[in-house]
């Protein structure tokens, strides 16, 4: 019987069926559920690694030792893992290794929309691109065979719509997972220059063989229909093309690097007009053009954002049915007057980050930010964050700002970073702060979880991915060990103390670390809590509480009220209220 699975669940299942023994990852949307699901199979070891580089290193260690390894990350995670990737591409594998790169066209939950097919080309490793969950599972298994047959790590590139869409999947049993023999082989696995030079030759020879393979593999196949139009496509875009262009011939590329030049040339000769329809970069298109083939692609289709079915229909001129045209006219006429207000994501009711950003905003402090839920502190009304670049960037950014603008500027400057992000790549930044004699004030937002990606454990939470207890990293001790003398732990809901500590640490002309520690509100969801209410008589309408950006507090005429179904009773609003108008429900205002 078929099962409805997301692409991510299907990849985990595929790894299990392929006899994988080690799965590693750092959480990142849209890749997180791959490893969460892999952890449910008792035959596979699975871990949250400290970051993507470590994840790949653990994976390649498992591979060299003879086991099959699955390593999963979001697209920007591959930037972090690029160093081991480019050289592991030289050594090749023992047990198969598949690296899942989950790209995020449209940036549903990312800071950029880089197209990681470029990475695979640069590292000279093959790329498979599934278009639905069945293919996600099948391609995962096939990728392990390819990896071992061609002695190469393989990239399985998915996008958000493949990762998070569910479709029906035929399941199979787990195949034998016997380890390959481990033999010391320095020529292959020790990449000193003399050996690496030989491996580069092997890499180029491998690429030639892969170029032959890609011509013959059923991963790349032609679906003939009318030959007036031929479309080359792959990934989820293939499904969109099938949906909106019923009569065209399609060359579906399940393997997008290396590309089948002969197959593409042959296809191009048999169709009157050739299109490449691909999301993001003109990756396939550039190759096709380089072979002197006339083709349309990014001259018609956008290279920015998700490529949606309606865009394909519109650009190919097939969406002009009268009915729809009528409807669209009506729609734009009506909506022209009432553009629905946007609904940006917000810090949750009771979020521990809210108190901190409220104080930072109040003190008008420059904030070098990082990646996590707390990035939402950049949005109005808190508007407290000055920069967000990548995982772990906050501390280095703050150091650089100080080096450019001097100590005076640093007296009004902090770096904020979450617990998991600090472990991921903040520690080196902190060491740099000490070593560079900066006076950086680093605030670690310790909410006891990896929040934004859906509450994964990490080395600071005391639990592994498999749920086993483990000694927590003591971040205060760690900061001291790298040379930070001033380390303070505060409750971010104690606004008064927080403000005092902040002022003290900002004034100090040496690096300091403030650990703002309070559990993520979503982890406390099941706690019984009494919502707060506003006394309409006492409320002066000063709107000070509105500066907290709490979604429960809404304007009610010239005063405010609290939405009791959402309020978790954190009491931050009562703390900032001058007039004592906000109380826990049921307490008198007497």
């Amino acid at each position, binding site marked *: 019987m078929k099962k409805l699975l997301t692409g991510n669940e299907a990849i985990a299942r595929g790894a299990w069926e392929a006899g994988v023994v080690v799965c590693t990852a750092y959480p990142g949307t849209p890749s997180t559920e791959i490893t969460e699901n892999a952890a449910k199979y008792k035959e596979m070891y699975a871990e949250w690694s400290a970051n993507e580089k470590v994840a790949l290193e653990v994976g390649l260690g498992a591979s060299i030792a003879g086991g099959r390894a699955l390593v999963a990350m979001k697209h920007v995670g591959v930037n972090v893992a690029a160093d081991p990737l480019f050289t592991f591409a030289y050594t090749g594998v023992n047990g198969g290794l598949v690296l899942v790169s989950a790209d995020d066209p449209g940036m549903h939950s990312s800071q950029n929309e880089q197209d990681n097919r470029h990475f695979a080309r640069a590292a000279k490793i093959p790329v498979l691109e599934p278009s639905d969950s069945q293919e996600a599972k099948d391609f995962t298994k096939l990728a392990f065979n390819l990896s071992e047959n061609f002695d190469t790590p393989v990239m399985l590139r998915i996008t958000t719509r493949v990762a998070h869409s569910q*479709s029906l999947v035929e399941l199979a049993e787990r195949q034998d997972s016997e380890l390959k023999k481990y033999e010391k082989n320095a020529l292959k696995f020790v990449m000193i220059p003399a050996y690496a030079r030989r491996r580069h030759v092997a890499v180029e020879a491998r690429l030639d063989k892969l170029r032959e393979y890609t011509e013959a593999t059923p991963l790349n196949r032609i679906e003939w229909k009318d030959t007036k139009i031929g479309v080359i496509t792959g990934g989820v875009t293939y499904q969109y093309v099938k949906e909106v262009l019923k009569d065209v011939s399609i060359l579906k590329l399940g393997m997008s690097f290396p590309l089948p030049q002969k197959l593409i040339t042959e296809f191009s000769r048999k169709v009157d007009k050739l299109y490449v329809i691909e999301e993001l970069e003109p990756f396939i298109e550039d190759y096709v053009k380089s072979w002197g083939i006339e083709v349309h692609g990014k001259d018609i289709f956008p290279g920015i954002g998700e490529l949606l*079915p309606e865009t394909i229909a519109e650009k190919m001129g097939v969406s002009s049915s009268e009915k729809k045209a009528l409807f669209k006219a009506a729609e734009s006429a009506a909506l022209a007057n009432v553009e*629905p207000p946007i609904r940006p994501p917000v810090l*949750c009711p009771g979020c521990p980050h809210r108190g901190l950003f409220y104080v930072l905003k109040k003190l008008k402090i420059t904030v070098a930010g990082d990646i996590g839920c707390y990035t939402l502190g950049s949005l109005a009304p808190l508007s407290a964050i000055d920069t967000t670049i990548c995982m772990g960037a906050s501390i280095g950014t703050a150091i650089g700002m100080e080096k450019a603008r001097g100590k005076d500027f640093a007296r009004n400057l902090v770096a904020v970073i979450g617990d998991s992000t600090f472990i991921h790549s903040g520690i080196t930044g902190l060491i740099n702060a000490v070593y560079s004699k900066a006076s950086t004030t680093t605030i670690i937002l310790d909410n006891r979880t990896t929040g934004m990606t859906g509450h994964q454990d990490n080395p600071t939470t005391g639990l592994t991915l498999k749920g086993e207890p483990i000694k927590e990293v003591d971040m205060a001790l760690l900061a001291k060990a790298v040379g930070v003398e001033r380390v303070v732990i505060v409750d971010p809901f104690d606004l008064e103390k927080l403000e005092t500590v902040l002022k003290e640490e900002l004034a100090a002309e040496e690096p300091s670390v403030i650990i703002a520690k309070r559990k993520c509100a979503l982890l406390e969801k099941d706690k019984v809590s009494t919502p707060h209410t506003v006394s309409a008589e006492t409320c002066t309408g000063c709107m000070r509480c509105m500066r907290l950006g709490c979604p429960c507090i809404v304007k009610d005429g010239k005063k405010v009220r609290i939405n009791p179904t959402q309020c978790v009773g954190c009491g931050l609003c009562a703390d900032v209220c001058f007039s004592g108008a906000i109380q826990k429900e049921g307490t008198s205002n007497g």
Partner: protein
Amino acid sequence: MADTKNILIVGVGGQGTILASRVLSGVIQKIGLDVKVSEIHGMAQRGGSVVTQVRYGDQVASPIIPQGEADLILAFEKLEALRWLPFLKENGSILINDQRIDPMPVVMGSANYPDDAFDTIRKQCKNVIVIDALHKAQGVGNVKTVNLILLGLLSNYLNIEKELWLEVIRETVPAKFLEVNLAAFQAGREN
């Protein structure tokens, strides 16, 4: 041949649209049709606008629904109903929970909540069904069953046996809350 049917479930992050789509897709599986479901996770879940797309038929290619192609929209919130309206087919139906959740720009007073949302929607769409699911959920004794109230309502518009719905609800909902959820489903059907 069953034509592909397109259903959008829209709401605000945290409202529990996911369970509704899980039950719906479970029911479709039981009738033996091909089905694809698409959701967006991550940042949007933090109180942002969320959407689940469900498509089913003999064979479904795209997991997402193009604008103007939804047969049915089930909206957990009024503003979200308005936002996703351009996805509705000209003769499609929209089922709306009469609940208002202010987005941050409205909370801050930099944007206005469209109080005339229903009028706007009715101007464009003939088949508008409004339900006060929160009130009905209070009626069955648990405000957290808004989900099932809305699913009950939705089930009236899909040609699928009631027994199949009940079967999937039994399989999906924890035993502790089963009875109240079944009551909520029934209350939604009787709207």
